[in-house]
């Protein structure tokens, strides 16, 4: 019995490996592989094709009931699939922010909304963007000023959103806006889904401190944009509570992420900025003051500390995933890994720059820049991580208030 179970899992492992060797892009995982520019049409196309194949093979779409397109598999199988995907350097299904919509709709959506929107997210065909932050409502999200006014069977939206990732390729968006000027705070907001091709919607890029030509973040403008009334999620005036589900999912505390074994691992993005192995490799090949940085005990201990922190976050992610699935955790706990992954990412970025000394001043474009300027780019990139998705300070407020039960000031 036990061995038959093992054989079955081993067969699945081989199946996933065969699938990957057949379907990953040519030269994937070798230095010869040239990844398309993130956010470019080629990159989007690649992610759509690959995610669709993964979904069709039953390797993604976990944590969602089958009637909404979900894929049901026991945890051991999901674990094998995930491990094999990770082994190939993270060609994980790219559903982007759509996964937040899935968690949100599972909890708040109508039957019709779940059937209409979830399947095309799970198979990676529709990419979503988030319309939460505004120029004057960042950490104080409940203070959004974008206004929605009811007009017959439609809502008319006017206002502006900003710091929107995927601003340029998003096809659908979700939106938190004010729908009452009289209701009390937190009860004056509603949550909508909108089609980015709707008249009255426009967008433009924001430049960021890394100076890269392709903007990852943008601004959204709503100028009398009309949304049909069946695209409100939850009740009118209850948008704040709907948005809380979205935010919990975003920080890694959602049911869907937990089912996929990714609880508390919003750090996928952070980790892509460089891990402990990269630091070790850099230390080994960097020579300062006549010796290898790897032979410097001070650096080695600091790298070991990062490795311990990584393991702590991994072990906590596993526990949290179990707790979320058992519903003994609310998901707010994921703010812990949001804080620590991102704060750690900054320290790791700093350390890489420290190792390379004077060369840490050279950015992309200088022929002498180490690793073509990627190290410095990542160090700068990491600065955003402790701000987006709820600053470290907001996350600590959440932990102290919602987990420890300390009072609000």
């Amino acid at each position, binding site marked *: 019995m036990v061995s038959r179970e093992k054989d079955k899992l081993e067969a699945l492992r081989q199946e996933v490996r065969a699938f990957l060797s057949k379907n990953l892009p040519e030269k994937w995982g070798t230095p010869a592989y040239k990844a398309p520019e993130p956010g470019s049409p080629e990159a989007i196309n690649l992610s759509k094709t690959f995610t669709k194949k993964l979904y069709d093979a039953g390797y993604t779409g976990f944590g969602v009931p089958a009637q909404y397109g979900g894929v049901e598999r026991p945890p051991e199988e999901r674990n094998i699939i995930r491990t094999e995907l990770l082994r190939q350097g993270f060609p994980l299904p790219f559903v982007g922010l759509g996964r937040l919509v899935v968690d949100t709709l599972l909890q708040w959506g109508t039957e019709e909304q779940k059937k209409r929107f979830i399947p095309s997210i799970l198979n990676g065909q529709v990419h979503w963007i988030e319309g939460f932050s505004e120029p004057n409502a960042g950490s104080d999200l409940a203070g959004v000023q974008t206004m929605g006014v009811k007009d017959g069977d439609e809502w008319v939206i006017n206002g502006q959103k900003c710091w929107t990732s995927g601003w340029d390729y998003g096809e659908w968006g979700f939106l938190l806006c004010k729908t009452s000027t009289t209701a009390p705070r937190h009860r004056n907001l509603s949550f909508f889904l909108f089609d980015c091709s709707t008249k009255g919607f426009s967008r433009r890029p924001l430049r960021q401190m890394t100076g890269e030509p392709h903007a990852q973040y943008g601004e959204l403008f709503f100028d009398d944009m009309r949304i049909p009334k069946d695209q409100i999620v939850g009740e009118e005036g209850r948008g704040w509570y709907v948005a809380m589900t979205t935010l919990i999912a975003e920080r890694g505390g959602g049911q869907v992420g937990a089912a996929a074994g990714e609880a508390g691992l919003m750090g996928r993005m952070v980790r892509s900025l460089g891990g402990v192995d990269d630091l070790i490799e850099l230390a080994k090949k960097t020579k300062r003051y006549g010796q290898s940085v790897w032979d410097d005990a001070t650096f080695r201990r600091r790298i070991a500390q990062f490795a311990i922190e990584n393991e702590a976050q991994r072990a*906590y992610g596993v*526990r949290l995933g179990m707790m979320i699935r058992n519903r003994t955790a609310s998901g707010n706990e994921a703010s812990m890994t949001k804080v620590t992954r991102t704060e750690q990412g900054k320290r790791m970025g700093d350390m890489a720059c420290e190792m390379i000394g004077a060369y840490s001043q050279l950015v992309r474009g200088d022929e002498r820049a180490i690793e073509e300027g990627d190290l410095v780019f990542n160090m700068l990139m990491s600065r955003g991580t402790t701000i987006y998705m709820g600053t470290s300070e907001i996350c600590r407020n959440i932990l102290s208030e919602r987990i420890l039960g300390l009072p609000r000031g």
Partner: protein
Amino acid sequence: MAIEIGLKEEQVMLKKMARDFLATETPKTFVRQMMADEVGHSPEKWRKMAELGWQGLVFPEQYGGSAMTFRDLTILCEEMGRAVMPGPFYSTVVLVGLPLLDFGTESQKKEFLPKIASGDMVCTLAVLEESGDLWADDLHLKAQKRGNEYVLTGNKLFVTDAKAADYMLVVARTRRTENPEDGITLFMVNAREWGIWIENMVVMDQTRKQYEVRFTNVPVSSANIIGELHGGWKILQQIALKASAALAAEMVGVGEQAMEMTVAYLKDRKQFDVVIGTFQALKHRAADMLIAMEYSRSLMEWAAECVKENHDDVAMAVAMAKSYCGDSLKFVTDSGVQLHGGIGFT
């Protein structure tokens, strides 16, 4: 508040039983009484624990134990840490009982384990010497062969619970070669032998007493060698591994207790006409304490599982857990003192 997961039903029961028992039997008044006591051991409480099966928790049934796992033992360690329970449990069970179980001969196990399990025997490990380091080259206490026995001469420091102990597992040098790790041998020594002289060291933590133990021509039978002659170093490493995992569990218990007390205080104490728990500077510190303890627990549970399963990564997992839990405990208890203000250090 601290969330328990991954515990089986019987483990949840063990934890609850331990917490209830310790709350009733070893309250703060008892802890203070034991701290003031020279030996710091209550035979009455020791017997009660034995009746619950704690000392023999991980021993197989044929040695009077309950055949539970190392992971179960760490649950007890956690709760003992939470209660800052004084007494020789850690010395007896973790430092001596486990190596006897792992490396003792059948007759040694039969001789010692049932007595430990029944509460009739208290033990401790005598290992460190003047350097204070677990470093083979620094271990000098000499064991000289004389007929069928060995004679021990030398000094041990930082020996926990020595005055309560009936037997000591003594780390001795039986030969000196180029490799300092060779020639180390472990002996089970009757602590009441002539030639053993014990004196208190004045340590900060009076819930775990430590002593200097001097051995002058102390005889011990060759039958009391644990493991191989000259081959004790690898046993010591195994002891250190399990002891570290058990300490990590204790630290998680202490830290969670300190955190819970501090959070309760933040909700209660008023200054500037408001509860101080409304101040973000303090809330953020409390959030960091929560993170430190949740991560500590995660690493500790993983390390304990690795010990239990003798997983390939066990050395790494235990080292990481010990390191992280230690740093976290310092941060959390120090923050606890700070956030309690004046009553924190008085």
